[in-house]
């Protein structure tokens, strides 16, 4: 027995190891099943799956990569939050500082490219699920959850786009949020808004419409920066995390990865 094996055996027979992993080394069917069942993270999976279902050419791994990118974005995002202040006076300077002064100043790059990759990955995941007909019964509800997750991914990316507070950021968000101005009834330039009166007082104007709600002001300014920051770092990720849990749980409950019935 080599030294490596004996150290390994010693570690695995210790009380500490046994308290964390309640099953033996996953070398046979029973312990391998236990490895998945007795681990809160791994038990997002079923114990066994269709061999043809986990082929790379079937799933393209896009759903899994989207989730992995979500985790990578969360980790780099939390680290970025240590350095970044969502205030007009500091935001841009903090972004410069992230690159210039922070050791291994790659966080923002990884975060931004990861966000782009996540958008592409989730689109392709949807395309795969569509082309394999995997939205069909019994998976209709999970497809709907997936569509909401796709929208949340785009919103995450969109709210994050403003945070560097450079020209690219504010004008892209200006173009995007100008749409809210035209929301029917609720936007002050939208159809129907002109009919919303209480006596002589207009209900919907530039200081009370959907765009104002989104930006916390009549233009992309300090209010918008703070709102987008809170939405980006707290609200949308929380909602997404809950829906991701639901999505994975339903994948299991609806019969794991799809295959011919």
């Amino acid at each position, binding site marked *: 027995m080599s030294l490596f094996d004996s150290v390994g055996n010693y570690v695995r027979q210790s009380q500490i190891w046994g308290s964390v992993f309640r099953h033996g080394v996953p070398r046979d069917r029973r312990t391998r099943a236990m490895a998945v069942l007795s681990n809160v993270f791994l038990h997002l999976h079923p114990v066994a*799956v269709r061999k043809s279902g*986990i082929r790379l050419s079937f799933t393209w791994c896009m759903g899994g990569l989207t989730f992995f990118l979500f985790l990578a974005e969360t980790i780099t995002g939390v680290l970025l939050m240590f350095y970044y202040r969502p205030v007009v006076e500091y935001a841009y300077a903090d972004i410069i500082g992230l690159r210039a002064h922070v050791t291994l100043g790659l966080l923002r790059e990884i975060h931004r490219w990861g966000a782009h990759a996540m958008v592409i990955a989730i689109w392709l995941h949807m*395309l795969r699920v569509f082309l394999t007909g*995997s939205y069909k019964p019994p998976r209709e509800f999970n497809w709907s959850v997936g*569509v909401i997750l796709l929208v949340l991914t785009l919103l995450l990316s969109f709210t994050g786009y403003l945070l560097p507070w450079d020209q690219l*950021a504010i*004008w892209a968000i200006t173009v995007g949020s100008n749409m809210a101005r035209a929301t*029917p009834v609720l936007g002050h330039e939208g159809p129907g808004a002109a009919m919303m009166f209480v006596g002589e007082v207009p209900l919907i104007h530039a200081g009370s419409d959907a765009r104002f709600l989104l930006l916390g002001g009549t233009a992309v300014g300090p209010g918008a920066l703070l709102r987008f920051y809170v939405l980006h770092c707290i609200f949308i990720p929380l909602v997404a995390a809950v829906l991701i849990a639901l999505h994975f749980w339903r994948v299991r409950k609806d019969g794991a990865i799809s295959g011919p019935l």
Partner: protein
Amino acid sequence: MTTSIHSVFAAAESGISDTIKDTLNALSVPEYFVSITVVLLIIGLLTYRQWTRPMVAVTLSLLFIAFYVWSALDENFFKIITKPDNIPITMMIVFTALVTWVAFRQAAINDARLEKGEPLIESGADDKVLVWPDLVYTELIAMVLCTVVLVVWAIVLKAPLEPPANPTNIPNPSKAPWYFLGLQELLVYFDPWIAGVLLPSLIIVGLIALPFIDKNPRGNGYYTFKQRPFVISTFMFGWMIMWIVLIVLGTFLRGPNWNIFGPYETWDPHRPAALLNINISDVFWVITPDWLGFEWWKPGLPTKAALGGYMPAFLIREAPGIVLLSGYFFVLPVLLAKTIFRKIYHEIGFTRFCVFWLLMSWMFIVPIKMVLRWMFNLKYFVAVTEYFVNI
């Protein structure tokens, strides 16, 4: 002697490449760009058993790579594709092409097998494997590869950072983030309440509604095209043309003043903006009477209310457009349900057909309006500018 031959070759070569570039620049206007991609999509769907053959696919991708590399030698093309936030567009094109091939390749194989009564790629008796180790390790490898790609990407390419935000300095063009550029492109044809609010909402609602409208039980859990050609064709039109192609158009080809610039053209901010557009009401009340040359009917745009003020002027003015749109939204589905959509109507029933038509009509009003804009410069079917209701 050699120099002169070289220069002759160089001249001939640059002559050819200039001709190609000029042609491609000219084909970059939406009229051609969107139309050509639609034709390519139709051909692709009809011939999916041919182009998915490995040899054909390899040839096509080599041609594409050659085209991209050759194009990248051009200064303007290089400038646009290497903007940091445009890099994802190239990735998106490559990955979308790759996975579409993978999907349709398997669909072609499965469809051939179904015809012969053979089992599908995805079928297999008793083929369950344990998640540990088969799936867990696949996931681990995917995560490691993804991390490596991200870190290398982050080292090689800096995230973009422009000068600090300045509310008084509006860039020309002002573009939304790249994944919304398809929607921004729709602003050329529709008012913001349609392009920016209604259509995105309908896309979301439509996607959620898809499993409840598509009652075809076949093609569940495996790649196929033959068993669900209508749904796949419609989806691929929405996805490939209305989403991907419009993003590429918006990112690579839209320049200052939202003008179209070919991929090999320099962005010139002084190029004049587009012509004035006309409404259906103009066509009905002014242009057609003029063109017909009637002496007895020169109505002009109605400006007076009728029926004792109960029918405001704009309703009379916009009546032709309202009739036209009502026909499209409410009469056409009845005709279709009795003719080419007869089978679909019987399969899915009245309620589902109504939702189906709501989604289909709004998806196809986009290309319809595009074509009418290109051909007749149409601005609005119905223009009630007074209440911001313009369609």
